[in-house]
């Protein structure tokens, strides 16, 4: 569960987030939408402690994020994976190596890595591209690689910051299908997006942000209203 308790964030007098109170249950799928600069990305960054609140507290399960020792942050980021609009793939590593990277960090041996990465790449339909470098991939393929990398440690939460922002509509829907699949397997997904077509056509909880505040809460599915336990 993710909890924001009276969280505010200011940069040099400018308010990025103002008095946010929010609960996101286990296995929920939540859209964050709003204009550029509304505070969507800042909110996501606070969950993985890329940003610290000026005031208030952020919790992931029982962990209070802002008071975590910095040595615990890598562990947090393995529990909460992130997908970005610009994919953030390691350019000098192949698809296989990019997806294998989080497993390497954990110190898994090569046969284990090969097996796990093979399974994940099959799931995102990239088993034919495993030796390709990021510059040899289409936008959709690059984003699916990024999703595979996020999935590989089987995180409890996936944060997606405009994951379809650089994609054509076909690729965008492929990415959404993958995220939906992950959610159906029990992963909490929090996705920031501008794409009206996507969030308006899917039955998930939608938080509309404006000037650092959650102005409105859109539709809510049965699943998101009553978070299911894994």
């Amino acid at each position, binding site marked *: 569960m993710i909890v924001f308790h009276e969280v505010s964030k200011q940069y040099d007098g400018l308010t990025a987030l103002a008095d946010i109170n929010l609960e996101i249950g286990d296995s929920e799928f939540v859209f964050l939408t709003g204009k550029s600069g509304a505070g969507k990305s800042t909110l996501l960054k606070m969950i*993985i402690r*890329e940003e610290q609140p000026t005031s208030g507290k952020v919790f992931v399960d029982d962990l209070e994020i802002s008071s975590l020792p*910095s*040595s615990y942050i*890598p*562990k947090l*980021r*393995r529990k909460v*994976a*992130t997908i970005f609009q610009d994919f*953030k*793939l*390691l*350019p*000098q590593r192949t698809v296989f190596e990019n997806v294998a*990277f*989080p497993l*390497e*960090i954990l*110190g*898994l*041996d090569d046969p284990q890595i090969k097996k796990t990465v093979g399974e994940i790449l099959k799931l995102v339909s990239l088993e034919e591209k495993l030796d390709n470098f990021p510059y040899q991939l289409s936008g959709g393929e690059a984003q699916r690689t990024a999703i595979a*990398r996020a999935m590989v*440690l089987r995180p409890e939460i996936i944060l997606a910051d405009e994951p379809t922002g650089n994609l054509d509509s076909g690729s965008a829907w492929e990415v959404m299908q993958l995220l939906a699949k992950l959610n159906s397997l029990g992963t909490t997904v929090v996705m920031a997006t501008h794409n009206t077509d996507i969030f308006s056509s899917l039955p998930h909880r939608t938080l509309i942000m404006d000037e650092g505040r959650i102005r409105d809460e859109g539709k809510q599915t049965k699943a998101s209203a009553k978070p299911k336990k894994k």
Partner: protein
Amino acid sequence: MNNLPRLLKVSFQRITRNPYNAFAAIFVMFLTFFISGLVVLVTVSSNQVLGFFESRPQVTAFLKDGTTSDKIKEIQDRLNKTEIVSKTKYISKEEALEIYKARFSSEPLLTEFVTAEILPASIEVSTYKLADLSSVAEILRSDSSVDEVIFERDIVETLQAWVKAIRNIGSAVVVFLVITSFLITLIVVGLNISLHKDEIEIMKLVGAGAWYVRTPFIFEGVFYGLFSALLASLVLLGLFLWMLPVLQSTFVDIPIFHNKVQTFGLVLAGEVLVGSVIGIVGSLVATRKYLNV
């Protein structure tokens, strides 16, 4: 431990992908270790030359022909009583001939017509301190049986001055070069950190810990230090082996580098140790300063 070969591989890739940075670091560090090694070897050999002159009979008194053995014994006793003399040795005409023949054994023309008769007998006198040579020389000169006195005070004093100068200037140059090497390691590793800024950012976002990010950069610094030290030691060894015949013919009687293997072993071990320390400290400082993990 599973990650060690992986991190070594990452480090190696980063070095080979930025060969000019690596070349700059290795070149400067090679120069440091080459000159440091040279200073050490020159200092060691100068000390050996100095030691040789200090330990060999330092005053030689050539005796007039016909000096009796009683007179010789009297001179030796008088010298031994002064307590500044460590050793006296009488060299007879026959022994002088043997020494002469041994020294010029490769040049028969010089030995062919020399007989014991034309060589003087002598007394070789060693002192505990270099400063006492003059007193001993005075005692010997005052004796009527002594024909001529020679001693190597000037050689020893000049050598001492040279060894001191080599040691001081060499140490200053080595300190300067070690500091330069440390700074070069810091700059090159820092530059590589800047070049991999995006990669480091991604590594952190997918859960890499501080040491996972840092370690390849530390390996990089260690590689520069170790590789340069080994290379410099090998070049020094090659240079020494190439010059050995010339050195041996120049310093005929002086046993410079009589412990060649030990001396080179120590130079190699010292350079590898200093190289590793410069690499580790330089890259650690660079990661502390430029790597925000």
